[in-house]
Each structure stands twice: as structure tokens, then as C-alpha cells.
């Protein structure tokens, strides 16, 4: 029976399956093609994979990736759990006001964070180091972020909100009587925390930690800025050089992408299959007033700790961007007399002859991509969510699975897949291929936003419309969509933000003329100077901050926990 519903289901399933599976399939095929020495023909074989162990550079990049991911995960988990606990469970002063600022790094670009920290703590031109030299008389430099520790530091603080969001929700939704009953049996505060609270929150902590590990492993911008130029290659920076560099080798790049993708997909599978379901068995959905612990004098310590995080993760980076961007050339010292807005003129005023095209194109293209991408992805998400939750059977289960797959693969891996799939088609070297990459990688986030709202809406609301005589499509238009509006809008803004700062997909798929905002930043950082880079970074940051403001207005904090 070809009803509207079944036709739509078939079309959407085919589109989603093609979008998600084709790149992965192409990646697998391509990873088994070995390029010969001449670089013109290929043979089948496993040599691309053995290169992971035999090729010294790639092997080292693999080890670095593991070290960076582990380090960032430890740092982000420590910061995320402690900040979440302070905000959800203690009487830390002004904790309600602090929360939005704790989340800001979630929305900003880690790549820009790396640029900002480079300007703050690079040995020669770092602002903090030059202050240390001038005012403290430190010889040489105080701190150096141009190494693996810098990569871990920036990645860690920028992904702290991921852990924070998981844990703070779990701490807030926990039934306080679970802890109260432990206290009544005679267990002290510390004992209750260790034996009741912590085990109950453990699945949330573990989920957050896994997400950070996977996201760090797929992060390109930070190691590209702080690691690769100083001899700390990672898998992502190696994949990048195999995709666009002088020694381009898509086949080797595919194998590296597959290796990275298998690791991340495995972790995401473990998280989805074993850890995420457990966090619901102990934490009910009811709203509770959680137990608040009186910290006494220590509350000021907690407050200071939280403020420090905000200073290091948000305030200092943004300050450094502003300062650096006002100088014609950044040499590590503030020179008030030299300050001007010239860098902004060059990066923003596209009609001027001295404007830098990569930057102005980037702004223009990113807005188009973000607007179109968010809109298409949300339409797709809406239909997919509807099918997953409102129709039962095989098709729904397949779609549900397809929506998790992209989450398991870092953007740069999926982008490699998209590149080898479509390189011989007309969409290659257009904005469309980037759009395709964006939507494929990120529509699951939108889908989750809608699903969470849809699960809260009774199916009977849809059914009663059908019984009133409305077709499937009319029901979608007049009942389902209006009811889902908050979820749709929250998802749209979230994707808009993600697309505006996206780097690791764009960097693989862009060509001259299709730069995005983050690619523009990359271009300036690579071919121009730090001051111009800071100006465009600042522009991007301001745009993102405005979007966050809008997002908080319409969505509230709940919509973030995708």
C-alpha cells in the first residue's frame, strides 16, 4: 500500500542510508587500494594499514592522538565533574549566574581557542610570557603551549562543558531521598558521596568522558595550530596532509580515517549500548530539589575555582584575540599607539580592494551553509524522528541505527569519505559537497533535539488528527510540527552554531572560492599573520556569542544535552 507515509518513509530512508553509508563504504574500499611509487596506479592490499605501524610519522601521530585524547579526557572530566558538582550541589555564591559562562566554550571554536592561547602563551610572542619577562623578570618564558601539553590544555578546557552537561543533569535529577536514606543509616557526608552519589552519577561521568575522548581524537584545529608545526602530528593533521597536502594520498588517508573511525565508533557504541541506558535506571525524570551542601568558608574557594575556569576558558582567550587583532603585526607586546581596526576592515569589507578573499568568502559562505544546512537538516530530522517514534517495525529500527552512525565518526573521517565518494562528480569543489558533509555528520544532533520533544508528546495527539479525517501529511503540518516548534527551533540554532564554526569537514572539502569562516581563519593563520587571524577569529566569536544569546532565549539549557 503506497500511502503518503510509506512513500515518505521509503524516500527518506534511501536518502539517509545513501548519505550515511556511501561515504563509509567508499572509505573502506579506498583504504585497501595501495598507491604505487609513481603515484599513478593502485593495487589492492593491506599496506595502507600496516603503514600505521611501519611508517614512523604515522605511527607517532597515532600515539600522539591517543595521548592527547587521554590527557584531554582526564582534564575535561576533572574540571567538568567538579564544576558540575559545585553548581548543582553546593551553596557556591552566584552559581546560577556562573552556569551560562561555564557552557560558553561548548559553542566557541576550539581552533580559535588554540589561536588565542598561542597568542597568550607561545614562548616568544605569548602575552603572558612577555609580561612575565617584563614584570617578573623571568628569563625566556614562563609557559609554553606550543606542544602536546598545550594541545591537551586547550582541548581539555574547551570540551569541559561536554562532561559538565552530562553530570550536572544527572546530579540535578537525582532523587535526594536516595542520599537522605544513606545519611539516616549513619553514613557521613563523605561516605554518602562516595558510596551513593558517585556510583549513581558514574554512568553520566563515563558518558561525558567517552564523548570527550572521541571528540578530542577527531579534533583537527587545536593540534593543527599548537601541535603539528612543532613536531606533534596527530592522525587528524596527517589525514589533512594526505587529503590536501603536497604528498596527497587519498588511499593512505582513507586507511588512517578508517582506523580513527573504528576506534571512535567503538567507543560511541559502548557508550550508547551500555552506558547511556544505565543512567536512566537510577535517575528518574522527575524534577527534584537536590540536596545542597553547605560549604561554609570553602564556598569562596569554590567560587574562585569556578571563576578561574571562566577566566582561562573564556575571558583570557577573548581578551587576547581583541588585543592582538588591533595590532598591525603581533610581536608579543601591547603597543597602544599602533592600534587600529585595520585588520577588521581587511577581513570584513569585501568590497575593498585590499580585502582578503579567503576571509570575506568564508563569512559569506558560512552563513549560507549554516542557514541552508540547519534548515535541511531539521526537515530531515523531523521526518526521521517521526518515523522512528511513530511507526514501528524494521524501517524505524534501521533509521534509528543510521542516526547514531554519524555520531561515531569524527568530521574529518566522514569528510574523507565524502571526498573519495564524490570527487569525480560535479558537486566536488562546490558548496554543495560541504553542505552534504555538514548535514550527514550533524543531522543526528537535530534529530535528538526533536526526538526528546516528540517522546514527551503523546502519540494520541497525532492519532486523533488521523481519526478526525486528516491525512498523514496534514497531521504533520497542522499538529505535529506546531507541537514540536520549540524542539525544532532549538535544534536549528544549535546546528546553525555548529556549522558556523565547523572546521574539520570544511578543511577537507573546500577549494578556492568555497572557504568557510573557519577555513578563512586557517588561511590567515597559515599564509597571513596572527593579527589578521585574531581579527577574523574575533568576528567568528562575536557571531557565535550572539547566537548563544538567541539560543538561550528560546531553548533553555535542557536542549543542550544531546
Amino acid at each position, binding site marked *: *500500500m503506497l*500511502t503518503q507515509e510509506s512513500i515518505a518513509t521509503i524516500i527518506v530512508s534511501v536518502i539517509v542510508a545513501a548519505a550515511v553509508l556511501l561515504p563509509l563504504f567508499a572509505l573502506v574500499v579506498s583504504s585497501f587500494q595501495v598507491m604505487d611509487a609513481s603515484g599513478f596506479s593502485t593495487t589492492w592490499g593491506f599496506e595502507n594499514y600496516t603503514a600505521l605501524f611501519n611508517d614512523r610519522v604515522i605511527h607517532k601521530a597515532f600515539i600522539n592522538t591517543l595521548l592527547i585524547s587521554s590527557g584531554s579526557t582526564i582534564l575535561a572530566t576533572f574540571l567538568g565533574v567538579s564544576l558540575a558538582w559545585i553548581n548543582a550541589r553546593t551553596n557556591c555564591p552566584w552559581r546560577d549566574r556562573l552556569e551560562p559562562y561555564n557552557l560558553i566554550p561548548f559553542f566557541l571554536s576550539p581552533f580559535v581557542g588554540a589561536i588565542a592561547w598561542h597568542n597568550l602563551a607561545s614562548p616568544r610572542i605569548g602575552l603572558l610570557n612577555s609580561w612575565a619577562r617584563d614584570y617578573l623578570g623571568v628569563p625566556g618564558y614562563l609557559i609554553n603551549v606550543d606542544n602536546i601539553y598545550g594541545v591537551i590544555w586547550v582541548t581539555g578546557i574547551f570540551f569541559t562543558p561536554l562532561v559538565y552537561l552530562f553530570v550536572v543533569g544527572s546530579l540535578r535529577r537525582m532523587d535526594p531521598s536516595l542520599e537522605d536514606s544513606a545519611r539516616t543509616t549513619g553514613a557521613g557526608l563523605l561516605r554518602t558521596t562516595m558510596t551513593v552519589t558517585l556510583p549513581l552519577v558514574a554512568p553520566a561521568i563515563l558518558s561525558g568522558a567517552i564523548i570527550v575522548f572521541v571528540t578530542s581524537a577527531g579534533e583537527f584545529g587545536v593540534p593543527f595550530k599548537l601541535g603539528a608545526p612543532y613536531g606533534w602530528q596527530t592522525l587528524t593533521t596527517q589525514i589533512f596532509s594526505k587529503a590536501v597536502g603536497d604528498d596527497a594520498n587519498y588511499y593512505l588517508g582513507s586507511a588512517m580515517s578508517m582506523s580513527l573511525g573504528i576506534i571512535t565508533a567503538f567507543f560511541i557504541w559502548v557508550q550508547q549500548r551500555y552506558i547511556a541506558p544505565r543512567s536512566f535506571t537510577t535517575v528518574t525524570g522527575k524534577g527534584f530539589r537536590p540536596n545542597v551542601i553547605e560549604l561554609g568558608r570553602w564556598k569562596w574557594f569554590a567560587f574562585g575555582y569556578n571563576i578561574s575556569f571562566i577566566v582561562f576558558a573564556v575571558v583570557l582567550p577573548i581578551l587576547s584575540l581583541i588585543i592582538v587583532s588591533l595590532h598591525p603585526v603581533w610581536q608579543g607586546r601591547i603597543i597602544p599607539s599602533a592600534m587600529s581596526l585595520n585588520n577588521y576592515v581587511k577581513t570584513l569589507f569585501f568590497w575593498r580592494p585590499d580585502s582578503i578573499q579567503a576571509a570575506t568568502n568564508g563569512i559569506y559562505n558560512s552563513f549560507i551553509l549554516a542557514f541552508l544546512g540547519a534548515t535541511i537538516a531539521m526537515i530531515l530530522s523531523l521526518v526521521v524522528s517521526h518515523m522512528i517514534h511513530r511507526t514501528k517495525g524494521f524501517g524505524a529500527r534501521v533509521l534509528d541505527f543510521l542516526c547514531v552512525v554519524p555520531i561515531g565518526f569524527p568530521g574529518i573521517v566522514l569528510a574523507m569519505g565524502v571526498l573519495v565518494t564524490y570527487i569525480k562528480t560535479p558537486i566536488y569543489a562546490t558548496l554543495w559537497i560541504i553542505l552534504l558533509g555538514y548535514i550527514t555528520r550533524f543531522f543526528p544532533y537535530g534529530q535528538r533535539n526533536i526526538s526528546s520533544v516528540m517522546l514527551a508528546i*503523546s502519540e*494520541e*495527539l497525532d*492519532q*486523533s*488528527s*488521523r*481519526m*478526525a*479525517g*486528516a*491525512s*498523514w501529511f*496534514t497531521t504533520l503540518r*497542522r*499538529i505535529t510540527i*506546531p*507541537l514540536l516548534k520549540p524542539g525544532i527551533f532549538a535544534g536549528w540554532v544549535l546546528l546553525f552554531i555548529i556549522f558556523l564554526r565547523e572546521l574539520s569537514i570544511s578543511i577537507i572539502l573546500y577549494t578556492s572560492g568555497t572557504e568557510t569562516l573557519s577555513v578563512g581563519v586557517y588561511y590567515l593563520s597559515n599564509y597571513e599573520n596572527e593579527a589578521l587571524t585574531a581579527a577574523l577569529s574575533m568576528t567568528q566569536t562575536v557571531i557565535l556569542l550572539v547566537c548563544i544569546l538567541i539560543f538561550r532565549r528560546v531553548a533553555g539549557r535542557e536542549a543542550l544535552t544531546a
Partner: protein
Amino acid sequence: MIAGNSAGVMADTSADDRYVEVQGLVKLFGTDRAVDDVSFSVPKGRFLTLLGPSGCGKTTTLMSIAGLHSVDAGRISVGGTVYTAPAEGQFMPPERRDIGMVFQSYAIWPHMTVAQNVAYPLEIRKIDRAEIDQRVHEVLHLVGLGTMADKLATQLSGGQQQRAALARAIVSRPRLLLFDEPLSNLDLKLREQMRLELKRIQHEVGITSIYVTHDQAEALVMSDEIIVMSKGRIQQKGGPREIYAQPVNAYVSNFIGVANLLKGRVVTATSAGRGEVEIAAGGRTARLPCLLRAGMTPGTEVVLSVRPENVAASRQNGGSACLEGEVIEAIFLGNSVDCRVRWGDFEWKVTAHPRAGLKAGQKVYLRLDPEHTLAVHP
């Protein structure tokens, strides 16, 4: 002419008798037979209730009629139109079935006002605005929401939402009304009031209705006919009085109202459907005169079913037909006394008159009314 007319009327009458017709309905959930060969019909304008505990298949049957899911076998037709018949490759989508439905959660759309909710089915049918307004106005008055038209659905109480849902279901004058436990989310007082209200409105608009509930009191009060279901199968179909007074088996007897149920065996049977059943409990035995169902012969294993109000308890020995027992609990309820009387290892539930003056620990004699003592199938 006259002959033709009467023939026409005859044909109509027989069609009206089987206005809704469900034949051999089967619905599988995996290997579980949620609905297992269910057949029944509903005459035009009547009120039928599907009654049973959760998981008995009543809601699944209703959803099949609504077309909200497919079935594995069987045939559903309303007024001669085939709705669902997998063997014939027929499945009419729900929106074309012209059915009004009231859901358990009310399903009043929160983004519309009451009037917009009720107008929706008419807008779908592309009726012109003036008539929509007119009919919405009428139906809101009918259900007692005349002053609430411009309220948002979220501003209504549970009972008011229920009325709005009913208004929305009947406004398009559908061929059939379906109710899926519509009163189960209301508190007791409101529920009792809404039962009568629903019945009145259904009677007034005269739309054939199928009602699903697990509440036997609701079924008895509202229905023209009741179907008792269990494990996907029909146990009994009949009017409320019939179901209560003449249950066919122990399941129905136990589900509807309260009954004393004892296993026994037929010892004598007469052609008039009467006979004697021997019962035993903890060393005590008795032969009791009772009504037998057709086909019961000496030796048939049966269950004896007696309602508490049909057991007379007296402190005087009334003769050999009496069962001698001991009162173990007597709860005074004002107009009656609920007693538990031990006889062997069986406890009889007895509704006694307060004047009998029964108290715990007393010896008591029970007499069962043979006209209301039923042998039913186990």
C-alpha cells in the same frame, strides 16, 4: 409498492443489525496473539462495551477498527463498507474511515483553543466557515462547554478536556464513535458523573459506539451490550443484566462483580436446566440444587458461582439444605453487613442484613437461593 417497501425495510433492518461487523480478527505482536479470532457485530445506534483487564486485547481490537494499525487476519466493515480485510487486500487509511474517537489521554491539541480543536474535523472536510462556527457552537453547548470556546486546551480541567474531546469526536457526525478508556484518568466522583453524561450525549446524537474499559461498573452503567474479553478472546457477549446474572464461565463471573466460586461436579441433571452439584472444601461436602448450562451432564466438572447477595445467613438452622459455618469477620456498612464465613477451608462472601446481627465467632447457617446458584464452566 408496499411489498417492495417492506422488503427494503427488511433488508435495511438486517443491515442495521450488523452495522459494525468484525469477523475473525487476529492481531499478532511477534508470536503473541493479542487478538485471537474475535468476531462480533453492533447494531446501528447501539452502545457496545469491550470489557477486560489490561492486555486482554480490547484496545487492540479498537485500534484495528480505527485503522491505527493493521491486522493479520479478519474482516472489519461498517455500514457495508469494508474497512480492513487483509485477505482481500483492503485497508482503508484511518482518515477515510469517518470515525470519531475519544482517547485515554484526551489528546486535546495544546496549541489550539477549544473551538479550534472542535472545528478541526470540519475544516478537514472543507465545510464552509459559517457552518463550522454554527456546528462548533452547537456541539460545545451539547457537551456543556458553551462558555469555554476560546480557552486554550491547557487551561481546561481533566473533565473539561474530556468533554472537548467528545465534542471533537462527534462534531462531524461520524458513522462510528470509538472510546478508549476515556474516563480512566478522572477522579472517582467525576468519573461517575461523566458516565451518565457520556451516555446521555451518545443517546442524543444516536451514533453507534464502541467503548473500551477495564472498569466493570462503567460497563454495566453505560452499555447496551457488553463483550467480556480475556487473553485476546471473547468470553461472553450479552446485555449488562445477562452478563451479571448468567455468566458463562468462572472468568466472567469473577470479573463482573463479586462471586463465591467453588469447584464441583454435577451429580444430577434434569432437562429444565436444573440439577445438583456436589462441592467439597476441607473435608466438608454438600449437594446443592442449582441452574445448569446446556450440555452439562452428571460428571461434568463445573464451578459453582453464587453472588454474596444471594447467600442468606441465619443463626437458626434452616434444615438439611443449609451449610453450617463460622463467621470470621463481619464489617458493618450501614445498609448491609459484609461477612466472611468459614466452611471447611473455604470462605464464603456473604452480604447480610444488619438485623441478622452477625458477629465474628458466631455459628451461622447459610442458605443458597437455587435460582441464583449457577454452575458455570471452569
